[in-house]
């Protein structure tokens, strides 16, 4: 298929009017119609019903629209990024991070975006899934990393990035630090510090094991949880992707494992600025181990 055919189709989807769409694309109507026909030939059927007073997408047209729009965006983004790099176009990258999801895994991608677009402004926002999704839908965020157990609307594209697991974070001189891994049983005598903002590993653990665990709720971010662990209040269950520094240490949480699939999400059909588009591409291109 040809770039112009896809561009014409995308314009036609918006206008549902051949004359207006051809005008917007700056081509004559016969040329416009021919291009759409050729695209229909290639895709194996009509994309548009052509009736006198009614132009609307066929089932095939509706099915192909999001894919063709995504390809068109990708084509435009590849060019726009190259141009933005040359022209130092100001750009911004706004990334949402769901509960307990750190930026460590995507930090390389951010660094690479800044290498190409040094003027880009980076903004991270940590929040609950519903707030992040709302922020993406209202164009306040470009994309977000979310665990796949939250409710995502169909309008959200999602790509699996990695699976994170819980680790038990404890002071380095804690008796459990002598073990290679910590199990649910080991924690029966411990206070577990819980925060809704840090991934809900402890709640998941309680529901899987049925153990009555001693939970201390603290509605804080990971940094505050770590402060409380350092003060000797108890043990925290956090994502293995967070960097834990001395005097704290972390041990793999072995039985049961508490895995979460972390997805990169972005609103379907919304073109991203060069910084955001390149970030999403970098994340999608690679494997996260």
């Amino acid at each position: 298929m040809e770039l112009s055919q896809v561009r014409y189709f995308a314009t036609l989807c918006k206008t549902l009017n051949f004359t207006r769409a051809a005008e917007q694309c700056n081509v004559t109507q016969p040329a416009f119609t021919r291009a759409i026909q050729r695209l229909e030939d290639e895709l194996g059927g009509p994309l548009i019903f052509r009736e006198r007073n009614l132009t609307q997408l066929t089932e095939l047209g509706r099915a192909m629209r999001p894919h063709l729009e995504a390809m068109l965006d990708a084509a435009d983004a590849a060019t726009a990024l190259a141009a933005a790099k040359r022209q130092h176009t100001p750009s911004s990258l706004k990334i949402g991070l769901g509960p307990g999801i750190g930026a460590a895994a995507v930090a390389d991608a951010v660094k690479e975006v800044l290498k190409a677009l040094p003027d880009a402004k980076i903004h991270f926002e940590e929040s609950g899934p519903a707030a992040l999704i709302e922020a993406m839908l209202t164009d306040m965020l470009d994309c977000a990393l979310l665990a796949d157990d939250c409710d995502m609307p169909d309008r959200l594209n999602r790509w699996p990035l990695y699976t994170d697991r819980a680790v038990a974070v404890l002071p380095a001189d804690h008796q459990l630090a002598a073990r290679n891994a910590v199990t649910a049983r080991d924690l029966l005598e411990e206070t577990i510090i819980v925060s809704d903002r840090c991934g809900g590993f402890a709640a998941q653990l309680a529901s899987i094991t049925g153990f009555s665990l001693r939970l201390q709720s603290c509605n804080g971010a990971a940094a505050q949880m770590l402060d409380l662990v350092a003060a000797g209040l108890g043990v925290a269950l956090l994502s293995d992707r967070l960097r834990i520094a001395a005097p704290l240490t972390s041990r793999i949480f072995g039985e049961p494992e508490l895995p979460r699939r972390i997805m990169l999400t972005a609103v379907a059909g919304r073109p991203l600025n060069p910084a955001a588009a390149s970030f999403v591409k970098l994340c999608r291109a690679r494997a996260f181990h």
Partner: protein
Amino acid sequence: MVQQVASHGFLEQVVREGAMFPDFMLPSAEGRLVSLDSQLARGPVVVSFFRGEWCPFCRIMLAALAEELPRIEAAGGSLLALTPETGGLALTMKTFHNARFDVLCDVDFGVGLAAGAVFRVPKLYRARCEAAGLNFPERHGNSAWCIPVPATFVLDRDGRVAWRFVDADFSHRAEPADIIAALRQLGAQ
């Protein structure tokens, strides 16, 4: 599939000799952003589209290019391989062949579309892929069921197509000797 692709005048759409190749910047297998113009600043560039890590003909072609890379470089050229596959498959492809050239991830076929080299997989072929366990939506990170024709382009320093190889039959690939000859001709100009 070959006939179906050829019969739609597909090859007419692929960017031709003398035309500018679409400008781009894409992520590499190692997670860097690589731009065509920074590559062109070093000399002529060979851009080659691959269908994916799963394709046996692509493997043969990639192995041949990896082997011929010293001669491609000696003729003044550098090489960029483009694949639509995501999730680390570009790196798998690159390490499997020990390739020293960049394998770039053409996420959502953007450059392939701009070069006119992408087509939708016909129904019958799609059914065969699915039966063979080839999950394109997972590999591509989109459900468009498209792939590029394995076309190869030699671009001059300005990014203009000096030579191209395109064939609807995916088992036919550019000969490294022809690529090198095209590069030498550019060097002689």
